[in-house]
């Protein structure tokens, strides 16, 4: 038997990797490709925007006020003779016009692009991290039980922390001390039972099964889903001090439920599969199994929902800015450029249309990209193609 025959008859690995296959399917979807291209362009714009508009002497100054040049339509040339040399716009022309204070809308849009990008990515990053964590625990350790005393201790410790925070020191300290004493007691019990190699029947009165971890996490998801999301975000953003980071955190912490459900569902089916059993039989640790073996198989739907989540987060941030709860004023965002421009909607429509269309295009590209990804990853379509 020659070597050629051997290679022909032995089972061969698929010629293309999964990534190449994905790309092949993805490339056929013209809308999705368009989305990807716009996404890359937007990314470059945002990065260059933050470089060009920040620092002591920015190339494009978004905060430069020229009151004599206010509300100029796009592509007007500045009147050089009325301006100081430092006030002349860098391009020699107001590409997107000026607003009611004579600020260059082009530089403000550049600055705002970065805000949209970071809000989208950080908020979705937070929500994906929380979602993967919760979903992973619910899917992998879901059948484990939480014991009654664990819940009680958590409640007591939290109550103690809140009481301390509110100001009543006595009961707060008492709660925390009681909680820690009980934890110490449990640790000592466990150590004793380990050293004596016997199963001590020292399980306390309260050490009873209460509910499974899966139930608990899914009920938390249910609770979070009961809140009207935009209203909740608006409430919290209105109550906490205005800053870009608070908005990101709030959007992130109110949108992790979908990811949790996806990851849990994937994990529930994955943990029954043979490769997980094999890994367990080899003695691989739980966390290595979760992150090295299971997560790569569960990440596809998360990626899709994250892409679409970025679009939603950008829209939410724009909506908050529009209502006046967004990133605080000196900093330009697309939402507050539009919000400021709405008073001049008939005199200076570009103040409404430029940021509006920019938000529309960016959100659209994320949505198209996400949907294209979803289609490419759909196993039904893969068989057909």
């Amino acid at each position, binding site marked *: 038997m020659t070597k050629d025959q051997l290679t022909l008859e032995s089972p061969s690995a698929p010629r293309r990797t999964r990534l190449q296959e994905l790309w092949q399917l993805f490339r056929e979807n013209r809308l999705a490709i368009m989305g990807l291209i716009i996404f890359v362009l937007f990314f470059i714009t945002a990065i260059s925007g933050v470089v060009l508009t920040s620092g002591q002497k920015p190339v494009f100054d978004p905060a430069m006020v020229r009151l004599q040049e206010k509300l100029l339509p796009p592509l007007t040339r500045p009147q050089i003779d009325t301006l100081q040399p430092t006030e002349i716009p860098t391009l020699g022309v107001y590409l997107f016009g000026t607003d009611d204070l004579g600020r260059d809308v082009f530089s403000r849009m550049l600055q705002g692009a970065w805000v949209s990008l970071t809000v989208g990515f950080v908020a979705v990053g937070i929500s994906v991290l929380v979602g993967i964590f919760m979903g992973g625990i619910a899917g992998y350790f879901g059948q484990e039980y939480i014991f009654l005393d664990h819940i009680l201790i958590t409640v007591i410790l939290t109550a103690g922390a809140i009481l301390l925070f509110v100001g009543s020191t006595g009961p707060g300290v008492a709660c925390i001390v009681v909680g820690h004493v009980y934890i110490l007691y449990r640790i000592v019990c466990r150590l004793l039972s380990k050293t004596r190699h016997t199963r001590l029947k020292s399980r306390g009165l309260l050490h009873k099964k209460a509910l499974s971890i899966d139930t608990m996490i899914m009920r938390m998801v249910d609770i979070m889903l009961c809140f*009207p999301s935009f*209203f*909740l975000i608006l409430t919290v953003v209105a109550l906490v001090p205005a800053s870009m980071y608070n908005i990101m955190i709030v959007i992130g912490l109110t949108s992790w439920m979908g990811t949790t459900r996806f990851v849990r569902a994937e994990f529930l089916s994955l943990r029954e599969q043979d490769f997980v059993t094999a890994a367990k039989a080899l003695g691989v640790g739980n966390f290595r199994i979760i992150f090295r073996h299971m997560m790569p198989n569960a990440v596809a739907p998360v990626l899709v929902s994250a892409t679409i989540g970025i679009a939603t987060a950008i829209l939410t941030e724009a909506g908050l800015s529009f209502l006046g709860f967004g990133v605080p004023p000196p900093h330009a965002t697309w939402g507050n450029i539009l919000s400021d421009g709405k008073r001049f909607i008939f005199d200076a429509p570009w103040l*409404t249309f430029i940021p509006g269309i920019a*938000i529309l295009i960016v959100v659209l590209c994320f949505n198209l990209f996400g949907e294209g990804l979803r289609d490419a990853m759909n196993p039904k379509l893969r068989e057909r193609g």
Partner: protein
Amino acid sequence: MLSFIGRSIVQKSVTLFFVSIVSFLIIHLAPGEPSQVDPMNPKFTPEMVERFKKEFHLDKPLYVQYTYFYRDLFTGKIVSWKDNQSVLTKIWERFLNSLPLFIVGTILTWTLSFPVGIRSAIFRGGIYDRSATFLAYLLISIPGFFFAYILIILVVTTLHVPVIGMETFGLGASSWGYVFMDRIWHLLIPSILGATGGIAVLSRYVRSQMLEVEGQDYVRTARAKGLSSDQVHYKHALRNALLPFVTMFGLILPGLIGGSVIIESIFSWPGMGRMAYEAILARDYPIILTVNFISAVLVLAGTFISDILYLVVDPRIRL
């Protein structure tokens, strides 16, 4: 069946209890206090603040405030901090204003998205399907406030009808028909805006459901029997594709109270969303918490109804 109903009622009450705690904590543990709303107001003396705090139990510990609040809510005695009016009557008035928007929006959503979705599923991959898909993505992606301004400019400059508010001010002596048309115009634009997102999402969903069913064996059998394509599409495919949508009737319930904060504030529509927005600005905790509580009740009731409906319409599901 009965045990399912009993179990889910218990489960949903527990969820509701936790929602009430979480929303209460979110509001009260956030920095800032309601008594600091207007520190520049000279009438707001320290004695006033003290009286205000006493009046609304703000000097009590949190759990006492919590029990006071929900006792007042369930006995209907709860009052707004801003003007001492009953919260429930205020919400009811605003709810009646939001109701027409909700009804027209829902009718638009459900009547438009089905034909669009079904047609794009039948002519899958055609020019109609592709343009409908693109349009749907466009409508999902457009910021509501931006779309609102486009529509306002269009309507005001081409049709010359005023659209802001619920009705044009000072129409007292006009004819009945004129007033009626005025109300319709004021109602139509915000409703269309409220419906756009729904139309886009629902029509995509209808399309995917139709496609799923059209691939089934019984549809092929129906074709093979020589049935006309209308009969195959509308009798065999559509009826089965409709199943999941029955359950969605329950899920539109939360929309009753949500309203849209942004759309209602653009159009100065005195509805629920705007009231909630004003309450947030004024830190009027009773209104915020009550709106939150009612909407949580509606979400839970909605999922409950949709579960029950699913049981009723789909004989394959047995508990």
